[in-house]
């Protein structure tokens, strides 16, 4: 079991929501609200998480070792000192990177390129 987690590709493809959570935490640690806002920003409001589906995802990712809960806080969030912050782990980064690579390979295929170009022109 231990081996499998190290092989980052075994999880591909990631669930979109997992991938988005990982991406939202790449540059800084966030609490739940931050994660929701960051995902909304990244997807231009297409994905709006609510508490009921955010926290089970966070928990699952923490248990998988991709995220960890952290006591560190960002300076501007003093008023949220009670909140739990989440940070991406090294494993989480590797898995996010592996998914990104997989997606890039997917979109760089010629046929997909043609599709993308055709769509943006039309």
């Amino acid at each position, binding site marked *: 079991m231990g081996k499998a987690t190290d092989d980052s590709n075994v999880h591909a493809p990631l669930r979109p929501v997992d991938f988005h959570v990982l991406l939202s935490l790449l540059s800084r640690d966030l*609490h*739940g*609200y931050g994660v*929701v806002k960051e995902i909304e920003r990244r997807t231009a409001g297409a994905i709006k998480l609510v508490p*009921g589906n955010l*926290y089970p995802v*966070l928990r699952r990712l923490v248990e998988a070792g991709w995220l960890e809960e952290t006591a560190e806080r960002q300076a501007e969030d003093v008023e949220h000192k*009670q*909140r739990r912050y989440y940070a991406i782990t090294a494993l989480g980064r590797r898995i996010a990177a592996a998914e990104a690579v997989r997606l890039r390979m997917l979109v760089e295929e010629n046929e997909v390129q043609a599709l993308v170009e055709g769509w943006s022109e039309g």
Partner: protein
Amino acid sequence: MTTVWVRIYRALLRLYPRGMRVRDGHEMLGLFVDLLEEERRERGSMAAAKRAIGVYLEVPRSAWAAHVAVRRTRQLGRLRRGHFVGDVGTDLRRAAVSLRRSPGFVAVALLTLALGMGATTAMFTLIHATLLRPLPFPEPDNLYMVYLTTRTPGRETRPTRWSYGEFQVLRDRDLGFQGLAAFARAEFNLTGEGVPYHVRGEVVSSGYFAVLGVPTALGRTFLAGEDGASGRTAVAVVSDELWRSALGGRGGLRGEQIKVNGVAMEVIGVMPPGFKGLTGRADVWVTHAMAPEVYYPSHFTSHQHFLNVAGRLRDGQTVESVASALNSLEPTLAEQFGAQHEGEGQWGATLRSLGSERIDPAVRRASLVLFGAAFLVLMIASANLAALLLSRGLARQREMAIRRALGSSRARLVREALIESGLLGLSGGALGLLLTLWLTQWGASFLSARLATRQLSQFATVSVDGSVLLFTAIVSLGTGLVFGLGPALRASRADVDMTLRGGARAGPAMLGGRRPGPFAVLVVSEFTLALILLVGASLMLETLDNLRARAPGFDPEGVVTFRIQPPLAEYSSEQGPALLERVLDAVSGIQGVTSASVGPCAPLMTTCAWREVRLPLEVDPGGAVRATFRRHYVGPDFLRTLGIPLLRGRWITRGDRQGSPNVTVVNRRAAETLWPGEDPIGKRVVLGSGEFMNPDSTAIVVGMVADVRYGTAEEPIGLDIYTSYRQFSRSFTYVMVKSDLPLSTLVPELRSAIRGVDPDLPIYDVATMGSRGSSALARPRFTGFLLASFAALALVLAALGIYGVMSELVSRRRRELGVRMAIGADRRILIRYIVGRGATLALAGVSLGVVGALILARVLESQLWGVSSTDGLVLAGAATFLLAVGLVAVLVPAIRAARVDPVVVLRSE
């Protein structure tokens, strides 16, 4: 505002699994607050509200997903820990396999349970039909019977029925009823094409069907204009049954005509199948408007109380509000009708729910007693089941110990045992249900025998329906679980170490040394319950014997009775007696008929009409002496036909006819009541009350006859007054015929004799006096039969119980017995020892049972006749009998114990 949204979300959080709530609840709430605040800041309160609602709506989905995830994790965990997958389906399969491995145990357990459950379910079916099932009408709780109340000074208030005039007063006031309808039983002859025949019907108000809320299946019901004293229209509504049998019953109504008591009527409506009116036996309905012509000439003018009134409360009205409105009727009723009912002060009216009014109190008591008895049988059966499970648990102690040693939790073993016993319970219940289906036939015939005697139908069709199935499922599962729990706990408590080393022999402790063990408790309680049942059954059988032995006061031998009802439309009150004379002549003329008479009611039935009788005013100026008598309008051969002895004076003769002085004959009880210590001959009485208080209805007593039982088997002897049918007539009557002909030849002869008198006159309700006698005993016989069956069952079950437990004891103590014998114990001492143990248990149970029987006997009191519920002889007899049965059951294992070969036993160790 925000706080409300947050508060709602906090409440909704409870839908998530506990673990998640504890861990993330606070965070989730915080996130919710943040999201909401942001939305409000940036897009206003409306947007915030929308957002909040969006979050709420998502809660069920994510909560469900979270629960599913928790479950999956748990199952995975269980698998990882190396346990068996613990879902109930697997346990059920396993229980079934385990039970299949011991067919003997299962057979005995199932048989025991099936008997107990069969009795209980059957009796539940009975009380469900008689007491619990709601009326088959929409919103039955709003339906009430309305009674007129009168109070004679010095007597308690008596609810009675209504005369038509009184009903009008009631109907014309607004008292809070949505509708009120008066109805009365009626008997009709249907004539026309083919053989004339008799049907039962009701005379009803036009709103009758609307009050009940029952629409017609075909056509319409009566219009308001067709009812009442002025609305004479010859129309009738018929039952589905009559429509199909007599009117062809196909297609729509095409102006079919029926001739009801000689009056042609158009059929305007057909009621839905099964509807038989509130009397539960009607096939034809006519309006009050038609009643004087077809049934009762004085329908509108009579002051007799013969109309039932049913009403439906308007929405929003309560019993209390209507009852107080009813009180306002008193002055009007007293003013208009007081004169006719002299001496009956304090008029009023009262309501009683139709749902409770239809329940015959005698049937209610009998049903409850029987249900209780069946429940006791079930308890005995359950005690046996518990004993069986207990010994099965002991036998499997080793298996349990091994599984405990291998890491099965105790809870798991208990659960498995409970699933086993629950399965047994349910299977026993299913078998019991089969027994019920067979037993309910009895119940059905019993009830139909009782129905005829009531003014209101009980709507009691005994049938197994959804409620019965539910009851059976719950009780059988409950029995399995409750009585399986003790044994399951005990079996799982096995001391692993001791059992596996082979040291534990639970025998002696289970039966009890100083403290009573569980087996002892079970056996004792079985004997206690069995004795209670045995005493109950003995008392009931004693009652039945007493009732059978009651002198009927007449000789039923060779007497056949039937009924005729000359239609009033064709026979006026002057022609009636002449018709009856011709009928009697024709019947007496049949070869083999010794004598014949008419009379309004035959002995041993409950259809006699009661009339008030008083003394002439000059003898009794205050009208203080008055009593209710059965009125008998009879012929000169009445005494000879029924073999009733004349005690004093003379009987009614052919010479006592219209024009000659009115004469009457009373029974002994009546004479003793009206003229205690005096000779009744020559006294004068006034027959009837109200309108009948005219000099013409005064009669001179010319004779006194012996008491005859006219009522039900239990009824005390009543007051009877006989007059000649030639002086006081009544349209419908029984004809009693004494002959030595068999019924099969007599009845066709009777039919043709009556046809000779009037071809349109049907004869009906033909029965020998012998069969009337036995149907008068129907209820006590039914109760007695069932109680005796339950007691017999209880006896067998208790005997099996003590036999099983003592056998168990003997086989568990084989080693000890072997050792005793090896060191020289006498076989007889051993037998005495085992029998002694058994007898002690039986005796303890019987003693407790005597106490229980003394307490419970009071419940039975109302069912008994001529025997005290605490009859010492009955108690002693039942106790002795039960002890004897117990001893026999113990003897077999005792002898087996004595046959133990010490060598074999000791070698096997």
